C-alpha cells in the first residue's frame, strides 16, 4: 500500500488535491489542486504537507468568512433601514423600518411584502403599527421557518432589507360597528393592534382579547390597555387573566356584552376558525385576516387564492380580510402546507450551515 493521500497523478506529474466542503463550492470550486512538478512519488510525499496545510487554511478562512456572513447583519444597501428592534420571546421579535411614504399610506388591516436579501423569499407580514410623524412602520415576526429565523438572526438596528413593498391589500372596514371585539393570537396579536386603535379612535366600544402561552411572553399590554375599553388576556397556563384559549375569552366577552355587533380575529388559521365557530350561533359579523403563501402580492400569481363562500378570492388584492363565516379554513390550512417538505429542508439546511465546523476539512481522494 503506497501512501498517496491527497495525491493524484496527471500524465507523469504528481498533484495535490484537497476536496472542498459542499457549502463552499460556490466560492472555491469542487476541490483545490496544485501540481508538485515532480514525477517521483517520494518527492511528492515530502512536498505534499505544506501545500495541504495551505489549502486547509484557505478552506478554513473561507468557512470562517461564510459563517461570519451567516450571522452578519443584513445589508443590501437599500433604503429600507431597520430603526428599532425588540425581542418579545425566543421566537417573536419586532422590527421597525424607516419608510416615510409607507408610514403615511398605511391603513389598519394592510400588510407588506418583505424580501430580506437578494436570494430571499417574498413573505407577507402584517403592518403591526405605523408612525406617520417618525416615518416608520412596525412588523412583529415569529421566527418559524428559514426566512424568518434568518431575519431574527441578521436583522439588527441599522440593517437594511433588500425589498419592502406595501402597503398591500384592502384596508379594514372600521366604519360599521359600535361595539367590537378584537381578537389576537399567536402572530396575530400585534396585527390586531392598528385595527383596535382605529376602532377606538372612531369612537367604538372596543373589547380586546389577546392570547399568550404564559405571562413572560406578554407584550404591548400597555398599548392594548390604552386603546381598549376592556382588555381580556388569556393564557394557556392561567398565569395571567383567563386560563384557556381566546375562544374562552370570547365567551366571557359575549356574556358580558350581548350587544357586540362585530368581531375581528387575527391569528393562526385554527384559532380564526374557532373564533368563527364561536360567533356563528350569535350571528355576529366576524372578520378574519388571512395570511397564505404569496409571491408578488399584486394579484398576479394566484398563489394566495382562498375559497370564500363559493368563490375563489385572491387574498392579496381581494383581502386580506374576509367574512369568517364564509372562509373555507380547511382549504386554507391545506394550502399553507404546500411547500412543507421544502420549507423544512431549507430550515434544517440553514440551521446546519450555522453549526458546521469544517476546521477539519474532509481529506482528499474523494470523488
Amino acid at each position: 500500500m503506497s501512501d498517496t493521500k491527497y495525491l493524484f497523478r496527471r500524465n507523469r506529474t504528481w498533484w495535490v488535491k484537497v476536496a472542498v466542503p459542499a457549502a463552499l463550492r460556490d466560492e472555491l470550486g469542487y476541490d483545490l489542486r496544485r501540481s508538485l512538478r515532480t514525477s517521483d512519488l517520494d518527492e511528492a510525499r515530502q512536498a505534499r504537507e505544506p501545500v495541504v496545510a495551505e489549502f486547509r487554511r484557505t478552506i478554513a478562512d473561507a468557512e470562517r468568512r461564510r459563517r461570519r456572513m451567516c450571522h452578519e447583519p443584513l445589508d443590501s444597501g437599500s433604503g429600507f433601514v431597520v430603526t428599532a428592534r425588540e425581542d418579545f420571546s425566543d421566537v417573536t421579535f419586532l422590527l421597525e423600518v424607516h419608510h416615510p411614504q409607507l408610514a403615511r399610506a398605511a391603513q389598519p388591516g394592510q400588510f407588506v411584502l418583505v424580501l430580506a436579501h437578494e436570494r430571499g423569499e417574498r413573505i407577507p407580514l402584517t403592518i403591526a403599527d405605523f408612525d406617520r410623524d417618525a416615518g416608520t412602520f412596525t412588523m412583529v415576526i415569529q421566527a418559524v421557518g428559514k426566512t424568518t429565523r434568518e431575519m431574527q438572526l441578521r436583522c439588527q438596528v441599522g440593517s437594511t432589507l433588500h425589498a419592502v413593498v406595501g402597503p398591500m391589500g384592502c384596508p379594514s372596514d372600521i366604519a360599521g360597528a359600535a361595539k367590537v371585539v378584537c381578537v389576537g393570537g399567536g402572530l396575530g396579536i400585534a396585527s390586531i393592534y392598528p385595527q383596535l386603535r382605529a376602532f377606538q379612535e372612531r369612537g367604538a366600544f372596543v373589547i380586546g382579547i389577546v392570547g399568550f402561552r404564559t405571562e413572560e411572553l406578554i407584550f404591548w399590554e400597555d398599548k392594548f390597555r390604552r386603546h381598549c375599553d376592556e382588555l381580556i388576556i388569556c393564557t394557556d397556563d392561567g398565569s395571567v387573566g383567563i386560563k384557556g384559549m381566546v375562544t374562552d375569552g370570547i365567551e366571557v366577552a359575549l356574556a358580558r356584552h350581548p350587544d357586540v355587533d362585530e368581531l375581528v380575529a387575527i391569528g393562526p388559521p385554527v384559532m380564526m376558525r374557532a373564533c368563527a365557530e364561536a360567533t356563528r350561533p350569535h350571528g355576529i359579523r366576524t372578520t378574519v385576516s388571512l395570511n397564505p403563501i404569496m409571491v408578488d402580492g399584486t394579484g398576479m400569481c394566484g398563489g394566495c387564492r382562498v375559497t370564500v363562500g363559493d368563490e375563489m378570492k385572491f387574498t392579496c388584492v381581494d383581502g386580506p380580510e374576509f367574512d369568517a363565516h364564509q372562509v373555507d379554513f380547511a382549504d386554507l390550512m391545506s394550502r399553507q402546507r404546500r411547500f412543507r417538505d421544502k420549507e423544512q429542508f431549507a430550515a434544517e439546511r440553514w440551521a446546519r450551515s450555522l453549526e458546521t465546523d469544517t476546521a477539519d476539512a474532509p481529506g482528499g481522494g474523494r470523488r
Partner: protein
Amino acid sequence: MTKKTIRTIPQERTTIPEQPVAERIHNFCEVALGYRPEDARREAERCLLCPEPACVLACPVAIDIPGFIEQICLGKDRAAYDIVADANLLPAICGRVCPQEDQCELVCPVGDTLEPVAIGRLERWVGDRALAEGWDTGAAVERSGLKVAIVGSGPASLACAADMAKAGCEVIVYEALHEPGGVLRYGIPEFRLPNHVIDAEIANLTKLGVTVECNTLVGRLFTIEQLVDEMGFSAVFVGTGAGSPRFMGIPGESLHGVLSANELLTRCNLMGALEFPAYDTPIDIGTRVAVIGSGNTAMDALRVSLRAGAEQVACVYRRSREESPARLEELIHAEEEGVEFHWLTAPVEILGDDDGAVRAMRCIRMELGEPDESGRRRPIPIEGSEYDFETETVVYAIGTRANPVIGQTSKIALDERGYIRVDEHLATSMAGVYAGGDIVTGAATVILAMGAGRRAAAAMKAYLGIRDTAVVYDERTSADRRWFGIDAGERNFTRLRLPADDAVGVGGT
C-alpha cells in the same frame, strides 16, 4: 449598387443557429443563438428595399425596416442601430419576442415567392450588436421641466418612458416588484429573453434620464390622484398590464400542485426557485406536469417545466393545433423538446390524494363545431369520453385578467371587465392620465403593448404642449446626415439637440 430583384437575392432564408435539443432542455441558455455577422449580411441582402415598404406599416412601432436593413448591407451597423432606436429603444428584446411572422414578415413581398426576410432576427442582431458595443442613442435631451410618471415597468411603460424622456420630460417609472421589466422579467423565461438583455436595455433608458423606482405599488403607496394633485406630475401613463390569472372553477383547484403559469414563471424567472435552496423561494413540480392552454405563456410554462426536471410534460388544449394561439416557432420548439400535446382535450376535474396533492386530472375529449364569434371553431365535449390523466402538477395558462390595484384605488373609469377605458388617443377618464398595453386591450403581445406605449406618449406630448416629432421619422434622407436620430435638414425640432454646455443626461458620444 445594382437594383436587387427577387431573382438576384439569396433564395434561402438564413437559418439562425440553435442550441441542440438534447442540450437545451437541461439548461436555461437561449435556444436561438443569434446571427453571426456573415449571417446578418447575407440575410440583409435578401431585402428588396421596397420604396413603399409594407413592413413599416405592419410594425406597431413603425421601425424604418428597409432603412436599417440597408445599413446592415453597407456594413454600417451603428447607423442601422440608430435607425432602429429611433422607433424602438428595446430592439434586443423585440427581436426576440415579437411575433414578426404576423406583422412585418407577413407582408414582406419577398414572402410571396420565397420565405420572407427574417426581419426579427436582423433586429435582434442589431440590438445585440448595440449591447455588445455599448452603443446608446447618445441623445442630449433638453429638459422641458415637465414631470411624467409611468406606472408599471413592462413593455408599454418602457416604450412610453423612452419617448417621454426623449421629449425632455423628467420620467419616473414605478414598479411594484423588486426588479424592473414587468412581464419581460417575471413572465418570459431566460431561454427566450435573458435577464442581462433586459438589464442592458433598461440601462439605456436610464442614460436618457429615466428613473426606475422599484418596490412601489402605485394605488396603495400613493394613488394616481396623488401623483397628479400632490406629487407634481404633469402627466401619468398607466401600463400595469393584465397579469391576474384565470382559473376554470372546476373541482380540485385548491389542491397542492395546481398553480397558475404566472406563479410558476414568477417563482422560476424572478425568484430563482430552480436554484432552491441557494435561493429561498421553493417550487415543487414533481416529475409529471400538465399545462392547460396553448398560448405563448403555456409554451413557456411547458418548456420551463422540462428544464426544471419534469420527465413527462403535457399540454392540454380544448381546440386543435391549428387554433393554438402560440407563435409557431414556440410551438415547434416545444414539440422538438418532447412536450406531449393533447389536442381537443379539456379538463373537467382535478383529483387529489389524501395529503391534498394532485394525483390526476380527469379530462374529456372535444370535437370542433361551428365557428364562434372569434372565428375559431367552437369545441364541443364528446359525451362519455372522460379519462384520467396522471400528473403531479397542473398549470393553468388559460389567460389573464386586468391587474386590479389601479381599478380598486382610483376613480379612473373601467369597462365591465375591469380594463381601463380610453379614447382614441389612449386618454383615460382622468385628465392627463393615459393608459395602454394589456391594461386596456387585455392580454396581447409585447410589441403591441410597446406600440400602445408610443401612441400614448405621442398623445401625452400633445397634451403637454410638446411638439410631436413624427416628421422626423417620415422625412428621412440618409443616415449619414443624421445626428442623434434627427435629420440634419429637419428644422424647428424641440426634441433633441446636439450636446450643449448645460445638457443633462448625456450618454455616449
